[in-house]
Protein backbone atom coordinates (compact mmCIF):
# COMPACT_ATOMS: atom_id res chain seq x y z
CA UNK A 1 0.00 0.00 0.00
CA UNK A 2 1.54 3.22 -1.15
CA UNK A 3 2.48 5.84 1.37
CA UNK A 4 0.57 8.99 0.52
CA UNK A 5 0.66 11.52 3.32
CA UNK A 6 1.73 11.56 6.92
CA UNK A 7 -1.51 10.32 8.41
CA UNK A 8 -2.33 10.18 12.09
CA UNK A 9 -3.59 6.95 13.57
CA UNK A 10 -6.86 7.62 15.38
CA UNK A 11 -7.69 4.12 16.55
CA UNK A 12 -5.31 1.29 17.19
CA UNK A 13 -6.11 -2.27 18.18
CA UNK A 14 -3.07 -4.00 19.52
CA UNK A 15 -3.31 -7.77 19.79
CA UNK A 16 -6.89 -7.56 21.04
CA UNK A 17 -8.45 -10.78 22.26
CA UNK A 18 -11.71 -11.57 24.03
CA UNK A 19 -12.81 -14.95 25.25
CA UNK A 20 -16.30 -15.87 26.38
CA UNK A 21 -15.73 -19.03 28.37
CA UNK A 22 -14.11 -21.42 25.92
CA UNK A 23 -14.96 -19.37 22.84
CA UNK A 24 -12.39 -16.95 21.52
CA UNK A 25 -14.65 -14.45 19.77
CA UNK A 26 -11.86 -12.08 18.80
CA UNK A 27 -8.38 -13.49 18.51
CA UNK A 28 -5.26 -11.29 18.56
CA UNK A 29 -6.56 -8.67 16.19
CA UNK A 30 -4.27 -5.81 15.18
CA UNK A 31 -5.62 -2.81 13.38
CA UNK A 32 -4.70 0.78 12.75
CA UNK A 33 -7.22 3.26 11.44
CA UNK A 34 -5.97 6.55 10.02
CA UNK A 35 -7.77 9.77 10.75
CA UNK A 36 -10.27 10.87 8.13
CA UNK A 37 -10.53 7.55 6.32
CA UNK A 38 -13.37 5.12 5.81
CA UNK A 39 -12.46 1.68 7.07
CA UNK A 40 -14.66 -1.35 6.61
CA UNK A 41 -14.66 -4.54 8.58
CA UNK A 42 -16.14 -7.48 6.76
CA UNK A 43 -16.42 -11.19 7.35
CA UNK A 44 -18.93 -14.02 7.49
CA UNK A 45 -21.65 -14.07 10.14
CA UNK A 46 -20.32 -14.71 13.62
CA UNK A 47 -16.80 -13.67 12.65
CA UNK A 48 -16.65 -11.25 15.60
CA UNK A 49 -17.25 -7.94 13.84
CA UNK A 50 -19.87 -6.60 16.20
CA UNK A 51 -17.81 -7.91 19.11
CA UNK A 52 -14.95 -5.70 17.97
CA UNK A 53 -17.34 -2.74 17.97
CA UNK A 54 -18.48 -3.67 21.46
CA UNK A 55 -14.87 -3.84 22.58
CA UNK A 56 -14.05 -0.43 21.15
CA UNK A 57 -17.11 1.19 22.72
CA UNK A 58 -16.51 -0.35 26.12
CA UNK A 59 -19.48 -2.71 26.29
CA UNK A 60 -16.94 -5.55 26.66
CA UNK A 61 -13.44 -5.33 28.07
CA UNK A 62 -10.81 -7.29 26.15
CA UNK A 63 -9.30 -10.39 27.77
CA UNK A 64 -5.92 -9.38 26.40
CA UNK A 65 -4.43 -6.65 24.28
CA UNK A 66 -4.89 -2.94 24.16
CA UNK A 67 -7.18 -0.49 22.38
CA UNK A 68 -5.86 3.03 21.92
CA UNK A 69 -7.88 6.00 20.79
CA UNK A 70 -5.81 9.03 19.81
CA UNK A 71 -2.94 7.57 21.75
CA UNK A 72 -4.87 6.87 24.96
CA UNK A 73 -5.64 3.41 26.19
CA UNK A 74 -9.42 3.02 26.36
CA UNK A 75 -10.03 -0.62 27.20
CA UNK A 76 -11.74 -1.00 30.56
CA UNK A 77 -13.32 2.44 30.40
CA UNK A 78 -17.09 2.74 30.70
CA UNK A 79 -19.07 3.25 27.48
CA UNK A 80 -20.22 6.76 28.39
CA UNK A 81 -16.63 7.83 29.06
CA UNK A 82 -15.49 6.50 25.70
CA UNK A 83 -18.36 8.32 23.98
CA UNK A 84 -17.25 11.52 25.61
CA UNK A 85 -13.71 10.96 24.33
CA UNK A 86 -15.09 11.01 20.80
CA UNK A 87 -16.28 7.59 19.66
CA UNK A 88 -19.92 7.20 18.69
CA UNK A 89 -21.71 4.21 17.25
CA UNK A 90 -24.85 2.78 15.75
CA UNK A 91 -26.20 -0.69 16.40
CA UNK A 92 -26.75 -3.66 14.15
CA UNK A 93 -30.20 -4.30 15.58
CA UNK A 94 -31.46 -0.74 15.77
CA UNK A 95 -31.51 0.60 19.31
CA UNK A 96 -33.47 3.80 19.19
CA UNK A 97 -35.45 5.31 22.05
CA UNK A 98 -38.74 4.30 20.46
CA UNK A 99 -41.13 6.28 22.65
CA UNK A 100 -39.14 9.47 22.27
CA UNK A 101 -39.46 11.89 19.38
CA UNK A 102 -36.90 11.86 16.60
CA UNK A 103 -35.54 15.17 17.86
CA UNK A 104 -35.27 13.96 21.45
CA UNK A 105 -33.38 10.90 20.26
CA UNK A 106 -30.76 13.12 18.70
CA UNK A 107 -30.73 15.38 21.74
CA UNK A 108 -29.62 12.40 23.82
CA UNK A 109 -26.62 12.22 21.55
CA UNK A 110 -25.68 15.70 22.77
CA UNK A 111 -25.82 14.49 26.36
CA UNK A 112 -22.09 14.10 26.84
CA UNK A 113 -21.36 17.55 25.39
CA UNK A 114 -23.70 19.36 27.77
CA UNK A 115 -23.90 19.57 31.53
CA UNK A 116 -27.28 20.57 33.01
CA UNK A 117 -28.15 18.31 35.91
CA UNK A 118 -31.47 17.95 37.68
CA UNK A 119 -30.97 21.08 39.80
CA UNK A 120 -30.29 23.08 36.66
CA UNK A 121 -33.47 21.64 35.17
CA UNK A 122 -35.46 22.94 38.15
CA UNK A 123 -33.89 26.39 38.25
CA UNK A 124 -33.83 26.79 34.46
CA UNK A 125 -31.42 29.72 34.52
CA UNK A 126 -30.57 31.70 31.37
CA UNK A 127 -27.50 29.50 30.98
CA UNK A 128 -29.62 26.35 31.06
CA UNK A 129 -32.08 27.80 28.56
CA UNK A 130 -29.23 28.81 26.27
CA UNK A 131 -27.80 25.31 26.51
CA UNK A 132 -31.17 23.76 25.69
CA UNK A 133 -31.46 26.04 22.64
CA UNK A 134 -27.98 25.05 21.54
CA UNK A 135 -28.88 21.37 21.96
CA UNK A 136 -32.00 21.83 19.84
CA UNK A 137 -30.12 23.68 17.12
CA UNK A 138 -27.25 21.22 16.94
CA UNK A 139 -29.68 18.30 16.94
CA UNK A 140 -31.69 19.80 14.11
CA UNK A 141 -28.48 20.24 12.17
CA UNK A 142 -27.60 16.57 12.62
CA UNK A 143 -31.12 15.68 11.49
CA UNK A 144 -30.80 17.89 8.42
CA UNK A 145 -27.57 16.17 7.48
CA UNK A 146 -29.36 12.83 7.55
CA UNK A 147 -32.39 14.37 5.84
CA UNK A 148 -34.73 13.69 8.73
CA UNK A 149 -35.44 17.22 9.93
CA UNK A 150 -39.00 17.10 8.62
CA UNK A 151 -39.70 14.16 10.94
CA UNK A 152 -38.36 15.83 14.09
CA UNK A 153 -41.61 15.58 16.07
CA UNK A 154 -42.53 12.02 15.18
CA UNK A 155 -41.93 9.16 17.54
CA UNK A 156 -38.81 7.25 16.58
CA UNK A 157 -40.67 3.93 16.54
CA UNK A 158 -43.00 5.21 13.82
CA UNK A 159 -40.22 5.81 11.29
CA UNK A 160 -39.66 3.36 8.46
CA UNK A 161 -36.67 1.08 8.76
CA UNK A 162 -34.26 2.97 6.54
CA UNK A 163 -34.98 6.22 8.31
CA UNK A 164 -34.47 4.57 11.69
CA UNK A 165 -30.98 3.57 10.55
CA UNK A 166 -30.30 7.15 9.47
CA UNK A 167 -31.68 8.46 12.76
CA UNK A 168 -29.18 6.29 14.60
CA UNK A 169 -26.40 7.93 12.60
CA UNK A 170 -27.80 11.40 13.32
CA UNK A 171 -27.93 10.55 17.02
CA UNK A 172 -24.33 9.35 16.93
CA UNK A 173 -23.23 12.49 15.07
CA UNK A 174 -24.82 14.69 17.72
CA UNK A 175 -22.23 13.50 20.23
CA UNK A 176 -19.63 15.25 18.05
CA UNK A 177 -17.46 12.19 17.60
CA UNK A 178 -14.09 12.01 15.94
CA UNK A 179 -14.65 8.39 15.08
CA UNK A 180 -18.01 6.92 14.21
CA UNK A 181 -18.70 3.19 14.18
CA UNK A 182 -21.52 2.09 11.89
CA UNK A 183 -22.75 -1.45 12.45
CA UNK A 184 -24.40 -2.60 9.21
CA UNK A 185 -25.76 0.82 8.30
CA UNK A 186 -27.21 -0.35 4.99
CA UNK A 187 -28.92 -3.48 6.26
CA UNK A 188 -32.50 -3.72 5.07
CA UNK A 189 -32.24 -0.72 2.76
CA UNK A 190 -33.26 -0.73 -0.88
CA UNK A 191 -30.66 0.18 -3.56
CA UNK A 192 -31.82 3.76 -3.74
CA UNK A 193 -31.68 4.23 0.02
CA UNK A 194 -28.19 2.73 -0.05
CA UNK A 195 -27.08 5.30 -2.59
CA UNK A 196 -28.39 8.13 -0.41
CA UNK A 197 -26.71 6.62 2.61
CA UNK A 198 -23.41 6.35 0.77
CA UNK A 199 -23.41 10.01 -0.14
CA UNK A 200 -24.32 10.85 3.45
CA UNK A 201 -21.39 8.84 4.75
CA UNK A 202 -19.10 10.63 2.32
CA UNK A 203 -20.46 13.94 3.62
CA UNK A 204 -19.65 12.84 7.15
CA UNK A 205 -16.14 11.95 6.06
CA UNK A 206 -15.78 15.36 4.44
CA UNK A 207 -16.59 16.89 7.82
CA UNK A 208 -13.34 15.40 9.04
CA UNK A 209 -14.70 12.32 10.80
CA UNK A 210 -13.20 8.89 10.64
CA UNK A 211 -15.64 6.13 9.77
CA UNK A 212 -15.37 2.52 10.75
CA UNK A 213 -18.14 0.34 9.42
CA UNK A 214 -19.27 -3.24 9.42
CA UNK A 215 -21.32 -4.15 6.39
CA UNK A 216 -22.39 -7.20 4.43
CA UNK A 217 -23.26 -5.47 1.18
CA UNK A 218 -20.04 -5.89 -0.81
CA UNK A 219 -20.89 -3.34 -3.49
CA UNK A 220 -21.52 -0.81 -0.76
CA UNK A 221 -18.30 -1.66 1.07
CA UNK A 222 -16.08 -1.80 -2.01
CA UNK A 223 -17.17 1.54 -3.42
CA UNK A 224 -17.11 3.38 -0.11
CA UNK A 225 -14.11 2.21 1.89
CA UNK A 226 -10.53 3.35 1.71
CA UNK A 227 -9.33 0.19 3.36
CA UNK A 228 -10.94 -3.05 4.39
CA UNK A 229 -10.10 -5.58 7.08
CA UNK A 230 -11.47 -9.10 6.87
CA UNK A 231 -12.36 -11.13 9.92
CA UNK A 232 -13.01 -14.86 10.06
CA UNK A 233 -13.53 -16.88 13.25
CA UNK A 234 -12.29 -13.92 15.25
CA UNK A 235 -9.01 -13.64 13.39
CA UNK A 236 -7.99 -10.96 10.95
CA UNK A 237 -7.26 -12.87 7.76
CA UNK A 238 -6.66 -9.98 5.39
CA UNK A 239 -6.42 -6.22 5.12
CA UNK A 240 -5.84 -3.77 2.33
CA UNK A 241 -7.54 -1.70 -0.32
CA UNK A 242 -10.85 -2.96 -1.72
CA UNK A 243 -9.11 -4.27 -4.81
CA UNK A 244 -6.47 -6.11 -2.82
CA UNK A 245 -9.00 -7.70 -0.52
CA UNK A 246 -11.15 -8.87 -3.42
CA UNK A 247 -8.21 -10.77 -4.90
CA UNK A 248 -6.99 -12.22 -1.64
CA UNK A 249 -7.32 -16.03 -1.75
CA UNK A 250 -7.87 -16.29 2.01
CA UNK A 251 -10.84 -13.95 1.73
CA UNK A 252 -12.31 -15.85 -1.18
CA UNK A 253 -11.90 -19.07 0.77
CA UNK A 254 -13.61 -17.61 3.84
CA UNK A 255 -16.58 -16.42 1.84
CA UNK A 256 -16.96 -19.15 -0.75
CA UNK A 257 -15.20 -22.09 0.84
CA UNK A 258 -11.95 -23.62 -0.37
CA UNK A 259 -11.71 -24.81 -3.93
CA UNK A 260 -11.50 -28.58 -4.14
CA UNK A 261 -8.78 -29.46 -6.60
Amino acid sequence: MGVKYMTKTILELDNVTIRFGGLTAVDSVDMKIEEGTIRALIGPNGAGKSTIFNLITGIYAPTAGEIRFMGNKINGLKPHVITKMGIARTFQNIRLFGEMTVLDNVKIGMHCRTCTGFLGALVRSPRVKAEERAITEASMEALKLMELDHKADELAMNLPYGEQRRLEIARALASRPKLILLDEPAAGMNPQEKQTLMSMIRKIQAMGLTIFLVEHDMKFVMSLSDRIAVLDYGRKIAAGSPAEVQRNPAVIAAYLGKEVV
Partner: protein
Amino acid sequence: MDSIFSMFLNDYYIQVLTMLGIYLIGALGLNLITGVTGQLSFGHAAFLSIGAYTSAILSLKLHTPFGLAILAGGLMAGLWGVLLGYPTLRLTGDYLGIATLGFGEIVRVVFLNMTITGGALGLAGIPRNTTLTVVLLVVILSVWAMVRLENSRFGRSLVAIREDEIAAEAMGVNITTAKITAFAIGTFLAGISGGLYAHLIQYLNPSDFGFLKSFEFLTFIVLGGLGSIPGVILGTSVLTLAPEFLRFISDYRMLVYGLLMVFMMIVRPRGLLGGVQLRRLFAKKNVQQTGTSASGGAN
Protein backbone atom coordinates in the same frame (compact mmCIF):
# COMPACT_ATOMS: atom_id res chain seq x y z
CA MET B 1 -56.45 29.44 52.86
CA ASP B 2 -57.70 26.62 55.01
CA SER B 3 -60.57 28.73 56.24
CA ILE B 4 -61.55 29.34 52.63
CA PHE B 5 -61.56 25.60 51.99
CA SER B 6 -63.70 24.95 55.03
CA MET B 7 -66.24 27.47 53.77
CA PHE B 8 -66.91 25.32 50.74
CA LEU B 9 -66.05 21.84 51.88
CA ASN B 10 -66.92 19.91 54.97
CA ASP B 11 -64.23 18.27 57.06
CA TYR B 12 -64.74 14.94 55.40
CA TYR B 13 -64.01 16.23 51.91
CA ILE B 14 -61.05 18.21 53.16
CA GLN B 15 -59.64 15.07 54.73
CA VAL B 16 -60.18 13.07 51.53
CA LEU B 17 -58.58 15.74 49.35
CA THR B 18 -55.63 16.08 51.72
CA MET B 19 -55.05 12.33 51.55
CA LEU B 20 -55.32 12.47 47.78
CA GLY B 21 -52.66 15.18 47.68
CA ILE B 22 -50.37 13.18 49.96
CA TYR B 23 -50.73 10.08 47.80
CA LEU B 24 -50.17 12.17 44.70
CA ILE B 25 -46.80 13.38 45.99
CA GLY B 26 -45.70 9.81 46.65
CA ALA B 27 -47.07 8.64 43.31
CA LEU B 28 -45.17 11.36 41.45
CA GLY B 29 -42.02 10.06 43.11
CA LEU B 30 -42.71 6.49 42.07
CA ASN B 31 -43.59 7.69 38.58
CA LEU B 32 -40.14 9.20 38.21
CA ILE B 33 -38.53 5.91 39.24
CA THR B 34 -40.79 3.40 37.50
CA GLY B 35 -42.69 5.40 34.91
CA VAL B 36 -40.00 7.69 33.58
CA THR B 37 -36.77 5.80 34.27
CA GLY B 38 -38.30 2.34 33.97
CA GLN B 39 -36.88 0.95 37.22
CA LEU B 40 -39.45 -1.32 38.84
CA SER B 41 -39.87 -0.61 42.55
CA PHE B 42 -42.03 -2.71 44.86
CA GLY B 43 -40.77 -0.97 47.97
CA HIS B 44 -42.13 2.53 47.64
CA ALA B 45 -44.14 2.38 50.86
CA ALA B 46 -40.93 1.69 52.78
CA PHE B 47 -39.64 5.12 51.78
CA LEU B 48 -42.93 6.66 52.83
CA SER B 49 -42.56 5.02 56.21
CA ILE B 50 -38.95 6.22 56.55
CA GLY B 51 -40.12 9.78 55.91
CA ALA B 52 -43.13 9.35 58.16
CA TYR B 53 -41.23 7.97 61.15
CA THR B 54 -38.31 10.37 60.78
CA SER B 55 -40.50 13.44 60.73
CA ALA B 56 -42.84 12.11 63.42
CA ILE B 57 -39.98 11.31 65.79
CA LEU B 58 -38.41 14.71 65.14
CA SER B 59 -41.75 16.38 65.94
CA LEU B 60 -42.41 14.29 69.03
CA LYS B 61 -38.97 14.09 70.60
CA LEU B 62 -37.24 17.26 69.45
CA HIS B 63 -40.24 19.48 68.74
CA THR B 64 -38.72 20.29 65.38
CA PRO B 65 -40.69 22.87 63.40
CA PHE B 66 -43.19 21.21 61.06
CA GLY B 67 -41.61 22.22 57.75
CA LEU B 68 -38.16 21.18 58.90
CA ALA B 69 -39.39 17.81 60.15
CA ILE B 70 -41.08 17.08 56.83
CA LEU B 71 -37.98 18.09 54.91
CA ALA B 72 -35.81 15.92 57.14
CA GLY B 73 -38.15 12.99 56.51
CA GLY B 74 -37.80 13.51 52.78
CA LEU B 75 -34.03 13.76 52.98
CA MET B 76 -33.78 10.64 55.13
CA ALA B 77 -35.91 8.68 52.65
CA GLY B 78 -33.80 10.04 49.78
CA LEU B 79 -30.63 9.02 51.58
CA TRP B 80 -31.92 5.47 51.99
CA GLY B 81 -32.97 5.59 48.37
CA VAL B 82 -29.37 6.24 47.40
CA LEU B 83 -28.06 3.60 49.80
CA LEU B 84 -30.45 1.02 48.37
CA GLY B 85 -30.05 2.25 44.83
CA TYR B 86 -26.29 2.06 44.65
CA PRO B 87 -26.02 -1.72 44.85
CA THR B 88 -29.40 -2.64 43.35
CA LEU B 89 -29.83 -0.36 40.36
CA ARG B 90 -27.36 -2.46 38.43
CA LEU B 91 -30.08 -5.08 38.50
CA THR B 92 -32.73 -4.89 35.86
CA GLY B 93 -36.44 -5.58 35.65
CA ASP B 94 -37.63 -8.44 37.81
CA TYR B 95 -34.46 -8.61 39.87
CA LEU B 96 -34.71 -4.99 40.89
CA GLY B 97 -38.37 -5.57 41.72
CA ILE B 98 -37.47 -8.45 44.02
CA ALA B 99 -34.66 -6.48 45.69
CA THR B 100 -36.94 -3.50 46.39
CA LEU B 101 -39.64 -5.87 47.64
CA GLY B 102 -37.13 -7.33 50.09
CA PHE B 103 -36.02 -3.90 51.20
CA GLY B 104 -39.62 -2.88 51.82
CA GLU B 105 -40.19 -5.86 54.11
CA ILE B 106 -36.91 -5.26 55.96
CA VAL B 107 -37.86 -1.66 56.69
CA ARG B 108 -41.27 -2.73 57.95
CA VAL B 109 -39.80 -5.37 60.25
CA VAL B 110 -37.13 -2.99 61.54
CA PHE B 111 -39.73 -0.36 62.43
CA LEU B 112 -41.79 -3.10 64.07
CA ASN B 113 -38.91 -3.95 66.37
CA MET B 114 -37.45 -0.56 67.21
CA THR B 115 -38.34 1.03 70.53
CA ILE B 116 -38.22 4.61 69.29
CA THR B 117 -40.94 3.82 66.72
CA GLY B 118 -43.18 2.25 69.32
CA GLY B 119 -42.92 -1.15 67.65
CA ALA B 120 -46.17 -2.92 66.94
CA LEU B 121 -48.07 -0.51 69.17
CA GLY B 122 -47.27 2.23 66.73
CA LEU B 123 -46.40 5.84 67.24
CA ALA B 124 -49.26 8.01 68.49
CA GLY B 125 -49.80 11.63 69.39
CA ILE B 126 -48.09 13.15 66.40
CA PRO B 127 -49.18 16.80 66.09
CA ARG B 128 -51.73 17.40 63.36
CA ASN B 129 -49.96 20.01 61.32
CA THR B 130 -50.75 18.85 57.80
CA THR B 131 -53.43 20.96 56.22
CA LEU B 132 -54.96 20.93 52.77
CA THR B 133 -53.17 24.19 51.98
CA VAL B 134 -49.76 22.78 52.81
CA VAL B 135 -50.43 19.62 50.83
CA LEU B 136 -51.76 21.57 47.89
CA LEU B 137 -48.64 23.73 47.86
CA VAL B 138 -46.37 20.68 47.94
CA VAL B 139 -48.41 19.03 45.18
CA ILE B 140 -48.12 22.09 42.96
CA LEU B 141 -44.42 22.34 43.67
CA SER B 142 -43.90 18.63 42.91
CA VAL B 143 -45.88 18.71 39.67
CA TRP B 144 -44.00 21.83 38.62
CA ALA B 145 -40.66 20.19 39.41
CA MET B 146 -41.60 16.97 37.59
CA VAL B 147 -42.70 18.84 34.47
CA ARG B 148 -39.45 20.78 34.45
CA LEU B 149 -37.43 17.61 34.93
CA GLU B 150 -39.33 15.80 32.20
CA ASN B 151 -38.45 18.47 29.65
CA SER B 152 -34.80 18.76 30.53
CA ARG B 153 -31.53 17.17 29.57
CA PHE B 154 -31.70 15.14 32.78
CA GLY B 155 -35.28 14.01 32.14
CA ARG B 156 -34.46 12.97 28.60
CA SER B 157 -31.60 10.84 29.82
CA LEU B 158 -33.98 9.06 32.23
CA VAL B 159 -36.46 8.27 29.47
CA ALA B 160 -33.57 7.08 27.30
CA ILE B 161 -32.57 4.66 30.07
CA ARG B 162 -36.11 3.33 30.16
CA GLU B 163 -36.22 2.93 26.40
CA ASP B 164 -32.81 1.31 25.91
CA GLU B 165 -30.20 1.17 28.60
CA ILE B 166 -27.36 0.03 26.35
CA ALA B 167 -28.02 2.69 23.75
CA ALA B 168 -28.31 5.36 26.44
CA GLU B 169 -24.95 4.38 27.82
CA ALA B 170 -23.42 4.27 24.35
CA MET B 171 -24.74 7.76 23.71
CA GLY B 172 -22.83 9.07 26.70
CA VAL B 173 -25.35 8.86 29.52
CA ASN B 174 -23.84 7.84 32.83
CA ILE B 175 -26.64 5.44 33.62
CA THR B 176 -25.60 4.60 37.18
CA THR B 177 -25.54 8.26 38.24
CA ALA B 178 -28.75 9.05 36.39
CA LYS B 179 -30.63 6.11 37.90
CA ILE B 180 -29.45 6.86 41.42
CA THR B 181 -30.38 10.52 41.05
CA ALA B 182 -33.85 9.55 39.85
CA PHE B 183 -34.17 7.09 42.73
CA ALA B 184 -33.05 9.75 45.21
CA ILE B 185 -35.61 12.29 43.93
CA GLY B 186 -38.39 9.69 43.82
CA THR B 187 -37.72 8.42 47.31
CA PHE B 188 -37.34 11.99 48.61
CA LEU B 189 -40.88 12.69 47.42
CA ALA B 190 -42.02 9.46 49.07
CA GLY B 191 -40.47 10.67 52.32
CA ILE B 192 -42.21 14.03 52.05
CA SER B 193 -45.45 12.24 51.37
CA GLY B 194 -44.93 9.99 54.39
CA GLY B 195 -44.13 12.93 56.65
CA LEU B 196 -47.29 14.75 55.62
CA TYR B 197 -49.26 11.54 56.18
CA ALA B 198 -47.86 11.17 59.69
CA HIS B 199 -48.84 14.71 60.59
CA LEU B 200 -52.34 14.22 59.21
CA ILE B 201 -53.28 10.82 60.62
CA GLN B 202 -51.31 11.45 63.83
CA TYR B 203 -50.63 7.77 64.26
CA LEU B 204 -48.12 5.48 62.55
CA ASN B 205 -48.02 1.73 62.48
CA PRO B 206 -45.50 -0.32 60.47
CA SER B 207 -48.31 -2.46 59.08
CA ASP B 208 -49.66 0.60 57.25
CA PHE B 209 -46.58 0.57 55.03
CA GLY B 210 -46.44 -3.02 53.88
CA PHE B 211 -46.23 -4.46 50.41
CA LEU B 212 -49.90 -3.73 49.75
CA LYS B 213 -49.26 -0.02 50.12
CA SER B 214 -46.39 -0.20 47.63
CA PHE B 215 -48.62 -2.14 45.29
CA GLU B 216 -51.31 0.50 45.67
CA PHE B 217 -48.87 3.17 44.50
CA LEU B 218 -47.96 1.03 41.52
CA THR B 219 -51.63 0.72 40.56
CA PHE B 220 -51.98 4.51 40.77
CA ILE B 221 -49.33 5.08 38.15
CA VAL B 222 -50.12 2.04 36.00
CA LEU B 223 -53.79 2.97 35.73
CA GLY B 224 -53.02 6.55 34.77
CA GLY B 225 -50.19 5.76 32.43
CA LEU B 226 -46.56 5.09 33.31
CA GLY B 227 -44.39 8.12 32.81
CA SER B 228 -47.25 10.54 32.19
CA ILE B 229 -47.77 13.29 34.78
CA PRO B 230 -51.43 13.92 33.83
CA GLY B 231 -51.80 10.13 33.98
CA VAL B 232 -50.43 9.95 37.52
CA ILE B 233 -52.84 12.67 38.63
CA LEU B 234 -55.78 10.90 37.01
CA GLY B 235 -54.84 7.43 38.23
CA THR B 236 -54.22 8.53 41.80
CA SER B 237 -57.40 10.61 41.88
CA VAL B 238 -59.61 7.84 40.55
CA LEU B 239 -58.20 5.18 42.84
CA THR B 240 -58.17 7.39 45.94
CA LEU B 241 -61.57 8.98 45.45
CA ALA B 242 -63.47 6.01 44.07
CA PRO B 243 -63.35 3.97 47.32
CA GLU B 244 -64.61 7.04 49.19
CA PHE B 245 -67.58 7.55 46.95
CA LEU B 246 -68.20 3.87 46.46
CA ARG B 247 -68.15 2.93 50.13
CA PHE B 248 -70.11 -0.24 49.44
CA ILE B 249 -67.16 -1.82 47.63
CA SER B 250 -64.51 -0.56 50.02
CA ASP B 251 -64.10 -4.03 51.51
CA TYR B 252 -63.17 -5.32 48.09
CA ARG B 253 -60.77 -2.50 47.31
CA MET B 254 -57.67 -4.63 46.83
CA LEU B 255 -59.68 -7.11 44.82
CA VAL B 256 -60.82 -4.32 42.54
CA TYR B 257 -57.27 -2.98 42.28
CA GLY B 258 -55.99 -6.40 41.28
CA LEU B 259 -58.73 -6.90 38.72
CA LEU B 260 -58.08 -3.43 37.40
CA MET B 261 -54.38 -4.23 36.93
CA VAL B 262 -55.18 -7.40 34.99
CA PHE B 263 -57.80 -5.58 32.94
CA MET B 264 -55.50 -2.66 32.19
CA MET B 265 -52.65 -4.91 31.09
CA ILE B 266 -54.97 -6.57 28.59
CA VAL B 267 -56.90 -3.58 27.31
CA ARG B 268 -54.62 -0.61 27.70
CA PRO B 269 -51.17 -1.70 28.89
CA ARG B 270 -49.80 1.81 28.70
CA GLY B 271 -52.42 3.24 31.05
CA LEU B 272 -55.31 5.59 30.49
CA LEU B 273 -53.07 8.48 29.53
CA GLY B 274 -49.98 6.50 28.60
CA GLY B 275 -47.59 8.57 26.50
CA VAL B 276 -49.50 11.78 27.13
CA GLN B 277 -47.18 14.61 27.99
CA LEU B 278 -48.21 18.13 28.84
CA ARG B 279 -45.54 19.52 26.56
CA ARG B 280 -46.59 17.47 23.58
CA LEU B 281 -50.24 18.45 24.01
CA PHE B 282 -49.18 22.07 23.65
CA ALA B 283 -46.74 21.34 20.84
CA LYS B 284 -49.49 19.72 18.77
CA LYS B 285 -51.62 22.82 19.11
CA ASN B 286 -48.81 25.01 17.84
CA VAL B 287 -48.45 22.87 14.74
CA GLN B 288 -52.10 23.22 13.91
CA GLN B 289 -52.06 26.95 14.40
CA THR B 290 -49.04 27.73 12.29
CA GLY B 291 -49.50 24.93 9.83
CA THR B 292 -45.79 24.13 9.82
CA SER B 293 -43.90 21.29 11.37
CA ALA B 294 -42.80 22.64 14.72
CA SER B 295 -39.08 22.15 15.00
CA GLY B 296 -38.75 21.68 18.72
CA GLY B 297 -38.19 24.90 20.61
CA ALA B 298 -41.23 24.17 22.73
CA ASN B 299 -39.70 25.43 25.93
